[in-house]
């Protein structure tokens, strides 16, 4: 396929003291695909995410996003270009409610300057109401409406995970980076997640890069998989091929790996059943108008 | 100039002594203990009441002062620190500021805000060091500081010390391995109060002491000393304290006396603090993280 390369990573290398965490890592993510990043614990997957989002400063290598070199941009500038991520240990703010968390994630879409908001200028009141409505829609899409006004910190792990995902989407991204989205989910929920991810890709034309240990899910949704080991690329390819790759089996899957164990979405997952097609982010997302800087 | 350096070294010894207590609490609780100075204040006032007002033997005053300090430490732990454990560090810091001010207010209420003089542990005239008169009491202070800093450094190598560190990092995990965070917390505050009490008892006889004498003038340099040393390093607290004392006095000499800049001592401390935090945030002797 000749889709556009949305993300291109060249020769990334990261060291902590004497520990070579990433070693000349290169990978490519094409637009509109779901790409998996798997590998043993400690292989450097999360570190790779941290380098891509600008949280770690790698010692070497370059990151291109949407055709432009973003290697030297700070985290928030990368986020504004359309990179969103979830966190292995959750990226929700515990002290805020689910709604507040989602509205927080809409930061770059607010469309007015912080100073204007503080002065209470006319447009900001209206825009606030719109943002609140959009947030409510996202919350409904993820089935969080029952807990919308509860503090995120008091919610069960799974719900907070969903909230994290909702927040990532609320930033109106081009590419979604998910760090173990299925961990802690029950098998049923993991299945539903697969359907959600495909839907996000197909309906919102999102590109997804996903770290995951839940092999059935990876096999189910990923178009392409990179396997990391000791910070290097072990192999890459289609999921089926990867699962048969002897080195992957030795390093990662272990003996009991049973290809295709996960059932594909035969049952209709709960969250997707009432997923609204008129999803606020797609058509009217204010990509075009210049986003004001966040500071006053 | 030499005299100022000598004065600084011995002035710095008090900062160091306070800094050791601050470092202990910081390592154990990730809290900046603003009440550290008042442990010394309480000890000094108690000892003064026993020795001067009631005319009891000196050792009774020392024992009573230390006991009062430790009692205060345990009370603070029970009444303030433990209930606020789950609150943000900011709230805890403010609460400890409150404890310090509360203690000062109590001392003022009970004992008048007048200056007092505590007889020294050892009588005797000062010896001349580089032109500065140094009292025997100050020599003892410096020696005690060195011993205590070393003892505390050793403590954190023991199992108990590790447990103290552990419960500061993850209370849940500490409970899970069978450490009682409450017991550790008591131990830490008791020890910190003891250190503060020692500092107060040793420093009070060096000059005049007033309510809040440790907090209002010693605490900020002591914190600076702790930070300078890396905040978690006990030898660092020692070195940092002395460095701060010397910088203060050099500031007074060079800036204050030669250049007539007001507030030279504070300026010196502030400049040093900024320099360390911005250039070597882990402090002189601190490790990363």
């Amino acid at each position, binding site marked *: 396929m000749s889709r556009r390369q949305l993300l291109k990573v060249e020769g990334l290398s990261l060291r902590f003291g004497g520990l070579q965490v990433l070693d000349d890592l290169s990978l490519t993510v094409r637009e509109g695909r779901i790409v998996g990043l798997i590998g043993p614990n400690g292989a450097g997957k999360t570190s790779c995410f941290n380098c891509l989002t600008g949280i770690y400063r790698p010692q070497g290598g370059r990151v291109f996003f949407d055709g432009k070199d973003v290697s030297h941009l700070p985290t928030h500038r990368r986020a504004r270009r359309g990179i969103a991520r979830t966190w292995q240990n959750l990226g929700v703010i515990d002290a805020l409610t689910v709604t507040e968390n989602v509205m927080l994630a809409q930061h770059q879409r607010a469309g007015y300057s912080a100073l204007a908001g503080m002065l209470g200028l006319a447009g900001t009141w209206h825009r606030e109401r719109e943002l609140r409505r959009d947030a409510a829609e996202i919350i409904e899409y993820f089935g969080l409406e029952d807990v919308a006004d509860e503090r995120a910190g008091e919610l069960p792990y799974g719900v907070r995970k969903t909230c994290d995902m909702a927040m990532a989407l609320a930033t109106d991204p081009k590419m979604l980076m998910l760090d173990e989205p299925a961990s802690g989910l029950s098998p049923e929920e993991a299945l539903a997640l697969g359907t959600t991810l495909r839907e996000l890709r197909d309906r919102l034309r999102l590109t997804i890069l996903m770290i995951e240990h839940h092999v059935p899910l990876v096999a189910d949704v990923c178009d392409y998989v990179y396997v990391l080991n000791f910070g290097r690329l072990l192999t890459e390819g289609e999921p089926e091929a990867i699962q048969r790759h002897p080195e992957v089996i030795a390093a990662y899957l272990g003996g009991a790996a049973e290809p295709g164990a996960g059932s594909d979405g035969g049952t209709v997952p709960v969250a997707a059943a009432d997923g609204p097609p008129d999803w606020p982010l797609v058509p009217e997302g204010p990509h075009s108008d210049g986003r004001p800087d966040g500071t006053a | 100039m030499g005299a100022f350096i000598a004065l600084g070294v011995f002035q710095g010894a008090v900062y160091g002594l306070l800094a050791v207590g601050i470092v202990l609490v910081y390592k154990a609780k990730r809290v900046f203990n603003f009440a550290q100075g008042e442990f010394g204040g309480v000890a000094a006032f108690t000892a003064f009441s026993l020795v001067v007002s009631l005319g009891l033997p000196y050792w009774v005053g020392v024992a009573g002062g230390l006991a009062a300090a430790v009692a205060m430490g345990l009370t603070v732990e029970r009444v303030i620190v433990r209930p606020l454990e789950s609150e943000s560090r900011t709230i805890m810091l403010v609460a400890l500021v409150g404890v310090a001010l509360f203690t000062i207010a109590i001392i003022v209420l009970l004992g008048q805000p007048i200056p007092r003089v505590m007889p020294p542990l050892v009588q005797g005239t000062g010896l001349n060091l580089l032109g500065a*008169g140094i009292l025997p009491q100050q020599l003892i202070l410096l020696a005690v500081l060195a011993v205590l800093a070393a003892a505390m450094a050793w403590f954190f190598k023991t199992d108990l010390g590790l447990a103290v560190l552990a419960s500061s990092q993850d209370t849940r995990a500490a409970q899970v391995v069978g450490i009682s965070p409450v017991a550790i917390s008591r131990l830490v505050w008791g020890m910190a109060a003891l250190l503060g009490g020692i500092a107060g008892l040793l420093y009070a006889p060096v000059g005049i002491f007033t309510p809040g004498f440790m907090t209002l*003038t010693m605490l900020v340099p002591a914190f600076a000393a702790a930070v300078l040393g890396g905040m978690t390093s006990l030898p660092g607290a020692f070195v940092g304290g002395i460095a701060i004392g010397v910088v203060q006095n050099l500031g007074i000499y060079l800036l204050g006396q030669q250049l007539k800049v007001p507030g030279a001592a504070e300026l010196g401390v502030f400049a040093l603090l900024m320099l360390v935090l911005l250039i070597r945030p882990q402090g002189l002797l601190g490790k990363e993280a």
Partner: protein
Amino acid sequence: QFEGVHEDFVEAGGENPGLGGASEGTGADGTDGTDASTEGAGGGDGGSDGDGGGGGNDNGNAGNGDTTGVTDSTITIGIHAPLTGAAPLRQDSFETGKDLYWQYGNGGGPVEIFGRTVETVFADDQYRPSTARQVCQTMAEEQQAFALIGAGGTDQIQACAQYAASEDVPYLSTGVTETGMGSLDTYFAASMTYRQQTPMLADYIKSELGVTDPSRVAAVVTNTPNFDDAVEGFTDAFGDVDVFRPDKNERGSSAAGNLCTGTVGNYDAVFVLTSPTFYLEMAAASGCRPQFVGVGVSMGLDQVASTGCSAASSTEGARFFNPTPAFADAGEYDPAFLAAVDAAGIEADDVTWMMWGQSKVLHQMLEKAGEDLDRGAFLDAVAGSNFSTGVFPDLNYKDGPFGATQVSVLRNVCSGGGHYETDHAFVSGF
């Protein structure tokens, strides 16, 4: 270096709304650098004319009908002093001292002035000028004090005096700075100002202590413009002495290094004009033992002496100029004081004694104002009058608000518990 600034402050003080007596008082003598350009400021010893200060109220204040604080049976007086803050006084001395004279000063009974007794209200100024101003307003306006008394603390006295002048409230304090005070037409100093005392102090050091070499003398004076006149008075009289100006919030131990280290050398006599705590810190910390002398450690002297003496007798022999003779000799100068103390059944100290003297001065002033007491009448009566109490110096407000010419010299004695004894009483020169 500071003169220019200094003038500005004085001027600014003069602009204060209500400082109204700005009837062109003629300037002071030209040699008096500090006050050279000050409108109506009283100069040095009798250096200025009479129209600046007390004289100001001739312009129609007489019988102005402001009877705030005066009823048929009482007169209310407001007192401010620091009970908290950087240099506080003992609360209990103050509590007993402020009413002693008014309640027991009349042969063991309450003082009556034309059938009126005197009540006091009191406020803590926290050793902060802004607080002083605020509490003075509260006392004068809310608690209806007829007149205000400042018990100690130069900057606070100055702040309150300025407020008092702006609202035409009579204000009495021991003599402190002259800066910005000469033009205040409701202010009266009950003892010599620092500016007046320092040349005398210089003479005293030379003739009584026998130290004549300026390089053997140091002045340690808190760094406030309000003490500039004191420093100037001293250096003008003594010559080129070493002057240290510690900041108001600085601790004594740092200045100690200055005093006794090899770099600066030892001094034979050290003139201190700082907060008591600072002085004590300095005395206790310095390894050398210079002869401390000073003016204006006005309240709580004995407290300072006893503290200083317990710190290895570090203040032994210190001599201070004081408005009153020593408390230890109070019976000699005013037996009524001891009688009143007995009648009240309190434990007196020098704070009580000072309050007694100041109250006595005020009593004479109130008497002079006559039966139809109002603020205007009071100010008129006091300006230009003489008062003599035998406790405070004799006063003559003919030439403005700085009407005292006598001081007493007290000496710190450590034996028998630190205290002061009178070396000279009511002298006006050495």
